[in-house]
């Protein structure tokens, strides 16, 4: 447990019937940090978030926020700001009234004038000042989630909890809003826990991303490290795409596709293993006498994805900058090699 941890989730456990939603989860979050919990559905990420909010009782474990044990504190007294997956604005209140709601309930009640100023500031922050007097049904999904964010931030929460707040929105609004969430979070310096099943979302805005599996934290690291240096095959396969390619492992290296590359810690150390190779670690060059053939090419804008069958029958997917892929189309002969990037190797079979 690091000394600088502002929020500490210690050995959390919770089961629903026979299902273990949390199985000894431990997680520290530093002040002002945005941590994303990522994982397949049922991995326990939402349960962890709800436990921190006080909406979910635990079988075991301890929750510490700002040095205080809040494990048994009721949700209404924890001072957590939460944004939900489903639209959760109070339908009988205007956007402004929604934002002011939490302020009205504070122990040291704020005056109506300072409430007004605060709600105006927050509506401005989320870019919806002109919609202050609109009712939720008059707002789009994206606007509703912005108001929900303003409402959660209005109480100056100790921790901001985001429970898949973008999953009900369409792709464009989703990207826009996630960037806005990050901007606001940095601006206010609010410690934030963000739960999502969308890896792009997690990797793009979080300071650190925790990958969860079966109620436990599989690995937590900065996005780039998580992607480049996965510690388990689950993390390697869950985050981003990988090509499973088998080869011989010895002395911390593996021989695949004619190259020898270093293996990451946690990999299989000897015998035959399956390397999990990122598509962008595969280098492709047009070559009429090459050892492989392109079966399909998809143009993705800045990059290009190639499905390649190597002469020995191995099928791989490579991704390279569109400029490098110019002239390589379906049916082209190419030669394939590996860039010198360490790979994670899991046990064969």
């Amino acid at each position, binding site marked *: 447990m690091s000394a600088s941890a502002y929020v500490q989730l210690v050995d959390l456990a919770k089961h629903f019937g026979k299902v273990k939603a949390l199985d000894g989860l431990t997680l520290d979050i530093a002040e002002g940090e945005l941590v994303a919990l990522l994982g397949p559905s049922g991995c326990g990420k939402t349960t962890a978030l709800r436990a921190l*909010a*006080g*909406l979910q009782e635990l079988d075991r474990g301890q929750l510490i926020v700002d040095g205080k044990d809040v494990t048994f504190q009721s*949700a*209404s*007294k*924890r*001072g*957590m*700001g*939460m944004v*939900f997956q*489903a639209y*959760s*604005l*109070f*339908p*009988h*209140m205007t956007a402004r009234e929604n934002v002011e*709601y*939490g302020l*009205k*309930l*504070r122990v040291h*009640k704020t005056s109506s004038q300072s409430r007004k100023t605060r709600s105006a500031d927050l509506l401005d922050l989320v870019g919806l000042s002109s919609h202050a007097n609109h*009712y939720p049904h008059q707002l789009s999904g994206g606007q509703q989630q912005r108001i*929900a964010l303003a*409402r*959660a931030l209005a*109480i100056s929460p100790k921790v901001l*909890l985001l429970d898949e707040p973008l999953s009900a929105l369409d792709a464009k609004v989703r990207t826009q809003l996630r960037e806005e969430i990050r901007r606001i979070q940095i601006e206010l310096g609010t410690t934030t826990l963000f739960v999502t099943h969308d890896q792009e979302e997690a990797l793009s805005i979080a300071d650190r991303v925790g990958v969860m599996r079966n109620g436990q934290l599989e690995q937590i690291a900065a996005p780039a490290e998580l992607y480049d240096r996965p510690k388990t095959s689950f993390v390697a396969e869950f985050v981003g795409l990988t090509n499973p390619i088998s080869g011989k492992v010895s002395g911390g290296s593996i021989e695949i596709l004619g190259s020898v590359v270093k293996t990451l810690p946690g990999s299989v150390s000897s015998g035959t293993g399956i390397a999990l190779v990122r598509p962008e670690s595969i280098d492709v060059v047009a070559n009429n006498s090459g050892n492989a053939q392109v079966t399909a090419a998809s143009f993705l804008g800045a990059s290009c994805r190639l499905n390649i069958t190597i002469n020995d029958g191995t099928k791989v997917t490579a991704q390279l900058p569109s400029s490098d892929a110019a002239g390589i189309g379906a049916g082209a002969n190419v030669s394939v090699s590996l860039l010198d990037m360490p790979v994670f190797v899991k046990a064969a079979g």
Partner: protein
Amino acid sequence: MKQTLGVKIWRWSIISIVAFYLLVPLYAMLDFSTKPFGFADTGRTFSAWATIGKQEDLLQAVTRSLITAAIVMALILFLVVPTAIWVQLKLPLLRRPFELLCLIPLAIPAIVIVVGIAPLYRWISINLSESPITLAGVYSMLILPYTYRSLSAALDAVDIHTLAEAATTLGAGISRVIFGIIMPTIKTGIINGSFIAIALVLGEFTISNILNFKTFQVVIAQIGRTNGQVAVAVSLASLLFVLVLLLLIPNKKRHGAILDVDIA
């Protein structure tokens, strides 16, 4: 979308038939209540209507029935609705039993209920009060099937769990969640349920008559035995009264601010 002539004719004929079916009895009541006495006379007289105001018994009965209705309303707002919300939010396993319990009054004939509660009301009359207002107790039970139906439909239509959790994280306690957030949200359901309840209370005859309480309907029946025209005039007036209530109340205040208990 433009309606074709055929559709228009079809719609209007349905509306006309329904209107005819509903309005003819009302017209007949009006006609009968304004007919002059005797066969030879023509023209109209409003003497039956004029007598309504002079019927001491009737005015008292109306007041009592309205007070009873108000008490039943209060019981719905502060007991039935919060209980239904509580069950939905906190005790999902009790939903079925609670629903069944609320439907029981529908399955038991009024006469059986009367036989069952007569001894209780005898005791109430002797020890507490002889006022027909005490009927609010049995009425609030009779209306359960109807109010519960419209409440549960309204509760199912919104995600009250998320709303409740959102309010809780913002610092609201359970009573504030129920009265300040959920009740205004399902306002329409509550109003619908309450109206059915009021209509039932104002129109109930069997129980009050057998238990010998002089409620609105009982007094109308009594007047009807001596003066048919006045009884019909009163019935028509009461219908119009309920109609006006129906038209007025849902538009009275914007978005349920009536129910938004602001303790702060």
